[in-house]
C-alpha cells in the first residue's frame, strides 16, 4: 500500500500563493528603504567629505597628541587637590543618582499605564515629568542650574538629579508596565488602594530590576558628572576646563586618562554588583 493511494491530501503544488506582506505593505517598505538611502547619499554629498583629507587628519591628530599632550603629567592628577575633585565628582554622582532615583520611583508609578493611580491626571503628568527630564541634555541642565544657582556642586547635583529622573524614570516605568497583572488584580479585588496595590503587588515583582537599574543609573550619572563639571558643576570636569583654557596640555591628557580610568572602574564595579543582584532573584 503506498501513500499516494491512501492520502487524499492536497497535491504538492496547490497553485496557491502567499506573501508575508500585502502588496501595499511591500511597496511601503521598499519606498521607506529607498528614502533612507537617498537621504544618506544627500547628507554625504552635502558634507562634502573629502576622503584624502579625512585620512590626512588622522596623522595630524597623531602628531598633535604626541607633540603636545605627551607625556601626560601624572603627578598633577595624584595631588591632593585633584584627588579631592575626584571625590567631589563621586559625591555629585551619588547624590544626584540617589535623589534622582527616589524621585523617579513615584514618577514611574504615575506614568505606568497599567497601575497608575489616575489615568486622566497623574499619568500625563508623570509622563511629562520623565519626558521633559530626558528631553533636555545634561549639559543644558547644568548651564540652566549654573545660571540659577551659580557655579559649583549644588548646580552639578541638581543637573545630575534631573538627568537621573529621566534616565531611571523611563526604565522603571517600562519595568512596571511589564509586571504580571495577576497579583495586581488580586489586590484590587481585595479592596486595596492604589498605593497598596503598588507596594504589595508591583514592588515585589520589580524590586530586583529596580536595584539593578538604580546601580546602572549611578554608573551613567558618574560619567555624566565629568561633563557636568566641565560646564560649571565642579569636580574633575572643572579641572579639565581650566587646564584646557590655560593650554596646560600635558595636564589635560593626565586628567582625561584619569577620567577614563575612573569611568572604567565605575562600570566594572556597577556590572559586578548588578550581576550579584540579579543572581539574588
Amino acid at each position, binding site marked *: 500500500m503506498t501513500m499516494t493511494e491512501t492520502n487524499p491530501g492536497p497535491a504538492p503544488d496547490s497553485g496557491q500563493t502567499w506573501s508575508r506582506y500585502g502588496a501595499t505593505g511591500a511597496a511601503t517598505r521598499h519606498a521607506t528603504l529607498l528614502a533612507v538611502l537617498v537621504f544618506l547619499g544627500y547628507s554625504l554629498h552635502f558634507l562634502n567629505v573629502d576622503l584624502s583629507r579625512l585620512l590626512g587628519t588622522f596623522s595630524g591628530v597623531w602628531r598633535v597628541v604626541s607633540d603636545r599632550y605627551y607625556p601626560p603629567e601624572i603627578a598633577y592628577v595624584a595631588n591632593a587637590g585633584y584627588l579631592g575633585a575626584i571625590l567631589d565628582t563621586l559625591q555629585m554622582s551619588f547624590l544626584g543618582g540617589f535623589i534622582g532615583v527616589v524621585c523617579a520611583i513615584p514618577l514611574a508609578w504615575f506614568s505606568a499605564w497599567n497601575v497608575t493611580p489616575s489615568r486622566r491626571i497623574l499619568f500625563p503628568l508623570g509622563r511629562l515629568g520623565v519626558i521633559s527630564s530626558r528631553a533636555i541634555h545634561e549639559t543644558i541642565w547644568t548651564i540652566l542650574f549654573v545660571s540659577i544657582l551659580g557655579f559649583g556642586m549644588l548646580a552639578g547635583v541638581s543637573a545630575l538629579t534631573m538627568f537621573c529622573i529621566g534616565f531611571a524614570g523611563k526604565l522603571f516605568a517600562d519595568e512596571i508596565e511589564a509586571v504580571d497583572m495577576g497579583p495586581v488584580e488580586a489586590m484590587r479585588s481585595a*479592596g*486595596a488602594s492604589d498605593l497598596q496595590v503598588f507596594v504589595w503587588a508591583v514592588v515585589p515583582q520589580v524590586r530586583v530590576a529596580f536595584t539593578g537599574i538604580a546601580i546602572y543609573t549611578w554608573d551613567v550619572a558618574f560619567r555624566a558628572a565629568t561633563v557636568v563639571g566641565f560646564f560649571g558643576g565642579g569636580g574633575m570636569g572643572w579641572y579639565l576646563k581650566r587646564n584646557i583654557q590655560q593650554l596646560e596640555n600635558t595636564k589635560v591628557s593626565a586628567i582625561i586618562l584619569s577620567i577614563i580610568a575612573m569611568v572604567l572602574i565605575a562600570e566594572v564595579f556597577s556590572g559586578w554588583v548588578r550581576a550579584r543582584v540579579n543572581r539574588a532573584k
Partner: protein
Amino acid sequence: MTVLKVRDLRIRYADNQPEILKGISFDVEDSDFMAIIGPSGAGKSTLIRCINRLVEPTSGSIELFGQDVLALKGTALRQLRRNVGMIFQEFNLINRMSVMDNVLSGRLGYTGNLRSLFRAFPQSDISRALALLDRVGLSDHVNKRADELSGGQRQRVGIARALMQQPKLLLLDEPTSALDPKISREVMGLIREIASELRVPALCNIHDVQLAKESCNRIIGLQDGYKKFDGETGTLRDRDLEEIYAMEVL
C-alpha cells in the same frame, strides 16, 4: 434572600470590537453555590469580573447586597470589593512573599495605607490568618515563600486570602482548572465545605461540566455571550449541554 441581581449586562472591550456579553440577567440567592459553565471564550471570566468591576460593563445593571455596583467610585467601590472574595485560576499570589504575607494581603481593604506599608497588621488579623491557614491545611508552610508550594497548596493560599476578607460573596474563576484532576476535586471540595460552613454564597466558573454537577446547586450555561441555560443542577439535560457546547468541537 437575593444577594446579587444582574440585569441585561452587556460589555465590549473596545468600541470597534464585538460584544462579549450580550444581555445577561440572573440572580444569586444567599444559599447558592452557583456554577457558570460554557466553552472557553464564552465570556465566563468577563461576567465574573464585571461583578467586582475588574472590568467595566458597557451597559446593564448589577445590584449586590442592595447596592448599585456600577454607580460606585473610589472608596465606596473598594469597600464593596472587600466584601467580595475572589479566587483565580492562576492563583495570582505574590510569589516573592511568604504564605503568611499573602494571606494577610487579603486584609488590605481593611488596613490603612501607613500600616500596610510596614506590614503592621493588627493581632486579630494575624490570628485569623493562622486559623485560616490551619483550616486549609497549610499550618506547616506559614513562612515558606509562595513560589515554593505546589499548585494545590498555592490555591489553598488563594482560598485563605479570599476568606481573610470575611467575604459575603465568593467569585471563583475556574479555581481548579490549573490543577490535576485529583487535586482539583480536593480543592473544589474544600471550597464547597468552607462556603457552606461560613454560609457564603458563591459564583463559580467551571469548564468541567461533571465537576459543576457534583459541586453546585445551580448552573448557568453561557455560550458566545448569551445565557443558554439557568436552573437547578438536576434539571440540566444533555440537550442543554449540546446547545451550550454547540460551538466547541468535542
